[in-house]
């Protein structure tokens, strides 16, 4: 039986998370179908059809799917899930919301945030804020799995799958979409950036984050923040890296003025190289940092930006 991957997109284009979920799905079974449910989303479906490894794209195009409502998306998946051995999506805010609904409707115990596929029914996932890795086996006939995107490479283009239009479900009248407030940024997306420069409480204020933005721009990276920095109002919450924010695993993670609480480490400790700049030599972040610099960030960061020309 085939594996169904639920695409994440903004109707116009696929999000990078979909490519990572596809790579994981290809390790679960031979044939992978991609469901693109949206409104006026033919362009996203076309992109899906070009992904290497996708053998068929199912397109459910209807106003009910305009805002990826968890209720409607779950009903749409349920309508076709019976033909599949696995239902897979990225463990993004969207995937985390609608997938457990799918799982409950299928009476399947979901496996969340998988970082490794051992076999078609056995998966590895972090627990306790990443302080342990559990290998779990699912006995359910339809396995519902969300994928930690940083655990799998992005699938490449090069495919040419057919797009099949399927009937879209009715919208659930109990939910009304009111509005969205999206943070605009010209920098790369936090979860897929090659370099992440993050600031913590030590930044002192939101204005000071301009220092990190300058450094991030020099490195072609994204800017992140610790929970302390978000709670203090320095940065919007969608910049938060950690157990309750975003999980990142860039090639280079620069932690500036971040002490390194368990909850923050949970979101970045799989980065390839970690650099910590902190004036407190006892800060726990130095225990995981490959390179540590005890210094005043207000001197060190501009100096670093300057030396990168």
């Amino acid at each position, binding site marked *: 039986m085939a594996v169904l991957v639920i695409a994440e997109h903004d109707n116009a284009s696929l999000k990078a998370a979909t490519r990572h979920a596809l790579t994981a799905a290809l390790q679960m079974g031979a044939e992978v179908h991609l469901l693109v449910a949206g409104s006026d989303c033919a362009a996203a479906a076309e992109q899906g059809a070009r992904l290497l490894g996708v053998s068929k794209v199912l397109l459910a195009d209807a106003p009910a799917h305009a805002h990826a409502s968890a209720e409607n998306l779950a009903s749409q998946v349920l309508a076709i899930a019976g033909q599949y051995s696995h239902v897979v999506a990225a463990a993004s805010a969207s995937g985390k919301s609608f997938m457990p609904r799918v799982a409950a409707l299928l009476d399947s115990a979901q496996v969340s945030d998988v970082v490794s596929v051992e076999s078609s029914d056995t998966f590895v996932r972090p627990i306790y804020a990443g302080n342990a890795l559990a290998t779990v086996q699912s006995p359910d006939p339809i396995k519902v799995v969300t994928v930690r995107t940083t655990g799998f490479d992005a699938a490449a283009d090069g495919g040419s799958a057919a797009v099949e239009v399927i009937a879209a479900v009715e919208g659930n009248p109990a939910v009304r979409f009111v509005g969205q407030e999206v943070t605009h940024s010209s920098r790369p997306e936090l979860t897929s950036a090659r370099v992440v420069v993050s600031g913590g409480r030590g930044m002192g204020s939101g204005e000071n984050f301009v220092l990190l933005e300058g450094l991030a721009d020099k490195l072609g990276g994204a800017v992140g923040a610790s929970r302390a920095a978000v709670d203090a109002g320095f940065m919007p919450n969608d910049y938060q890296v950690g157990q309750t924010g975003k999980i990142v695993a860039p090639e280079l993670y620069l932690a500036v003025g971040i002490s390194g609480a368990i*909850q923050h480490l949970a979101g970045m400790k799989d980065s390839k190289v970690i650099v910590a700049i902190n004036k407190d030599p006892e800060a726990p972040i130095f225990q995981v940092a490959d390179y540590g610099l005890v210094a005043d960030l207000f001197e060190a960061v501009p100096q670093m930006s300057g030396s990168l020309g």
Partner: protein
Amino acid sequence: MKVLVAVKRVIDYNAKPRVKPDGSGIDLTNLKMSMNPFDEIAVEEAVRLKEGGIASEVVVVSIGPAAAQEVLRTALALGGDRAVLLQDEGEVQPLAVAKALAALCKREQPDLLILGKQAIDDDACQTGQMVAALLDWPQATFASQVDVSGGRVKVTREIDGGLETLDLALPAVVTTDLRLNTPRYASLPNIMKAKKKPLDVLTAGELGVDLAPRLKTLKVVEPPKRSGGVMVADVAALVDKLRNEAKVI
């Protein structure tokens, strides 16, 4: 309006979990246990709805061992009116918890069910969504603002790109994000009063639900340790290391 809040007893967020040497799980002996932080926020929100004259009763429920009574007493000290414990000493996974909560919701008939967005031990982030599906109620996950009026609830949610606002018909399920509110501390008089509040203990059999775990845990291991790093003297040395040794810039 009646509000039901689900709370879980978990390892304290400051405690460092240890993996058992035989790989069977996490050793929790002698570790401090507390209410899951997201659930404290759920209790606080429910109590605020009561203080705002919107909720008439706040019922707190937990599914777990006898020791979870302490967590329920804490929730009562924070302002809950009464508590229900579905006592079970075994491992309880999100799907089973969702089924039990759905059964409790059918019994209690709340207008709103509030849960934390995830428990900090299993990090599953499933239960609220699953209960909503089983009851066919609408859901709003990762809530950072909740406004109840006229038989509906308006919820601002934290999403990957920013914020989103949904308007749900009641009854509905809401799961809390960290920024929804700042939970209060229980005062000593309230802790004393909480001891006299009703706490019913049920079994899975009485509620007619099966709590047996579905997923089988084959092993639990420690994540790979990062090798100890080096301290550099200044920015020039750092940039040199990143450029010539790590080759990441």
